[in-house]
């Protein structure tokens, strides 16, 4: 067969394999840099926060007011406990703005009844256009709770309506199925106090599956028991503990998870608020940073590793596939919308480091991985590559993947050490070992599907199924996910 192909095809295959090899080396070299950067950053962060007393700060009248933005759509079953958990967050100047996004169930009635809402004369200058807001209510039991009832317009629209009503200097968009740790908000406010240049700060998201909850709080931090959630737990640790932490020193983050992130309100409204896209969280951060460069305004985006929000990871392959597909469509959409940033020196580290890396490493990775495997198989079939080489290459790729996951676990052990049970730690090591054997290839497939979906113009969110959190043994109420708004 090789003779029939001729030297031309052989050269093409060899060149392609070499290109993939070079890409592989460059990407992994970047990961190595990211690892070192995150280790240095974590060390400094731990030193700065060691023995830091947050007790005094919690009683300060000078802390910036924070508005939590909670979009709700058909969340009658869970909205009450979700809000009760938010109302107990340890932060002195907290406002919660719930937007009922045209629910067809009794979400609003339940809110009015449970929290004793009264209609109030809040007009609010509305810098962001949204679907009409019918009425605004304030709770008589919790004066810091504001609820708006509006026509359905989707998650971004609900967030923008909440943003119009918010009075805090800082706003925090809370995603569905998220449990925020009691003191997390106080820690996340830190960067805004330290520097006036910070426009957004992100926090760590951890997988809550397997954890025991009590009245909307995680009381026993456990590693997930099921393989799919366990693999995601390792992924999350890797993404947050060395991915986002490392970016703090390499030109700043481009993503703040929609599940839990804090923003300066005026920057958010000045930039036009949330865009109607499937990756609204990343798009917003890129836009904020881009406008910062263009208008000469502050645009620092930082990541703080110790405030934690817990999220429920999908336990079914189909649901996970839809989520990853949507994430990659969101990434594609954001990178396309802001394509002029690519290697543009006008945007400093954003244009020259962060944006190109997201394009070449995050977005292009599934294409390169799929192409690499195909080329390897073709090379083997046509005798261009010998079996020992292919085997060695596989070992290097697998070994580096395991190494990165292991380093993330090591950083977790050396710093936050949240999983107290030895069994949980060993389970995470096991998931790190098997992650690259099948699971990773599946994520490549889902991400490729996302790219194809983006090219075809798909914009739906896809239904997310949630199991709910594990209640504590005392029989308390399970922490319920916060309201989710999927695009109508």
């Amino acid at each position, binding site marked *: 067969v090789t003779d029939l192909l001729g030297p031309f095809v052989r050269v093409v295959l060899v060149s392609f394999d070499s290109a993939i090899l070079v890409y592989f080396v460059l990407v992994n070299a970047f990961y190595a840099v990211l690892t070192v950067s995150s280790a240095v950053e974590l060390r400094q962060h731990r030193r700065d926060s060691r023995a830091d*007393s947050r007790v005094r700060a919690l009683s300060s009248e000078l802390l910036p007011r924070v508005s939590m933005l909670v979009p709700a759509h058909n969340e009658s079953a869970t909205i009450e406990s979700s809000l009760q958990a938010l109302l107990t967050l340890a932060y002195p100047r907290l406002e919660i703005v719930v937007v009922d996004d045209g629910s067809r169930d009794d979400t609003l009635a339940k809110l009015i009844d449970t929290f004793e809402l009264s209609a109030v004369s809040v007009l609010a200058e509305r810098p962001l256009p949204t679907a009409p807001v019918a009425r605004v209510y304030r709770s008589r039991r919790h004066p810091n709770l504001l609820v708006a009832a509006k026509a359905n317009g989707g998650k971004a629209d609900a967030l923008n309506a909440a943003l119009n009503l918010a009075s805090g200097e800082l706003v925090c968009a809370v995603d569905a199925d998220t449990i925020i740790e009691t003191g997390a908000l106080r820690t996340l406010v830190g960067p805004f106090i330290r520097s006036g240049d910070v426009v957004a700060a992100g926090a760590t998201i951890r997988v809550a599956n397997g954890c025991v909850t009590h009245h909307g709080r995680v009381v026993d931090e456990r590693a997930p028991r099921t393989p799919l959630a366990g693999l995601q737990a390792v992924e999350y640790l890797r993404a947050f503990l060395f991915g986002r932490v490392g970016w703090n020193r390499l030109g700043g983050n481009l993503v703040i998870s929609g599940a839990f992130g804090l923003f300066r309100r005026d920057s958010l409204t000045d930039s036009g608020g949330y865009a109607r896209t499937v990756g609204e969280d990343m798009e917003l951060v890129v836009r904020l940073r881009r406008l910062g460069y263009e208008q000469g305004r502050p645009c620092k985006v930082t990541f703080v590793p110790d405030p934690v929000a817990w999220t429920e990871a999908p336990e079914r392959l189909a649901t996970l596939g839809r989520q990853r597909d949507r994430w990659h469509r969101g990434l594609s959409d954001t990178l396309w919308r802001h394509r002029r940033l690519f290697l543009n020196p006008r945007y400093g580290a954003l244009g020259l480091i962060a944006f190109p890396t997201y394009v070449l490493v995050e977005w292009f990775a599934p294409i390169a991985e799929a192409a690499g495997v195909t080329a390897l198989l073709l090379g083997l079939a046509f005798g261009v590559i010998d079996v020992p080489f292919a085997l060695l290459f596989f070992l290097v790729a697998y070994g580096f993947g395991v190494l990165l996951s292991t380093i993330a676990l090591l950083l977790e052990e050396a710093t936050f050490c949240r999983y107290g049970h030895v069994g949980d730690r060993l389970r995470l090591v096991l998931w790190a070992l098997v992650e690259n054997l099948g699971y990773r290839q599946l994520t490549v497939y889902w991400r490729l599907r996302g790219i194809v979906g983006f090219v075809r113009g798909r914009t739906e969110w896809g239904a997310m199924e949630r199991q709910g959190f594990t209640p504590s043994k005392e029989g308390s109420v399970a922490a319920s996910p916060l309201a989710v708004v999927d695009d109508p």
Partner: protein
Amino acid sequence: MTTTGLVVLAVRVLAAALVATFATLAGFVVIGERHRRRQGRRARARAAAVDALTTGSDARGDAGPAVRALRALTIAEARSVLSELAASFDGASLATLRSLAASLGLIDRDKAGLRSRRLSRRLTAARFLTMLGVTSDDIARLLRDRHPSVRAQAAVWAAAHPTEQTLDAVAALLSDPDGRCRFEAKDTLARLGRRATPLLTRLLASTDAGTVTASLEIAAVSSDPAYVPAAARLARAGTAVDRALAATVLASSGGPAAVETLRDMLDDPHSVVRRAAVSALAARGDWPAAPLVAARLDDPSSAVREDAGLALLRLGAPGIVLLRDAARAGGEGGAMATLVLEVHDSTTPRGAP
């Protein structure tokens, strides 16, 4: 070297790295058990310390079970347990904690740590001594430390030790380049209340713009009439931000003279100031100023128009009458008045004014 050779080398390097990482991780996982044991030890030490506080045995100099339990911990752990407890105590209980810490040698150790060249030692020592309410000139010196974290921590300490020299050093931090230092300095002065009044009154006359703004922020949460003269002066002479803050100070602390100043501020060229003045007059319930507020319904800024409408609602019957007049007159002001009245009518029970 051939490509295969390179890949073989990479496999070997990776294998070595993996073995090393796994060995370290295994070490952590196994040694991680110490984490649980440590938690158990800390819980016992905490319980013993609380017991010592309730019985007061250690206040009499008896080492007691608390000291023994704390001695079983590492220095960092003992410090952490005592700091945790100190956050909830004051007075005699805090003194007992201090004596426990002293009998363990932690206070002397950390007093020495304040002079360390190592940032982490200075910071840890300053935080621990602050939590325990220990007085030391060395902490006061840290208000001028080269590292902002240490300066900020010393500012926290100064809230409990407000000498003239200390407060002067804290005041200097109001214009510190680091935000943490500025925040902690403001917070300390705000917590000191009337003890900081003479200093703040002096700072409000400062020529440093940052210091003046920070002082106004503190005055705005202090409700102290002593700041009214300075606020009245800055309401006419400061930056837009300062003028808006001055309006807040006048609303919370000012007398009849303040109302006059606030009325003048309704014609300020900056919308932020006009908004603050409108809200301040409503907050003071100054209904004779209602016609002046009503005039702001035709303000070029929609934010001022909205605030004026809501301010008129807060002023009660005179405000509502003016809103109805404005609604009949039409124009931008009429539109806003109509909107405000609609909201008012839809949210007010029948029969109410």
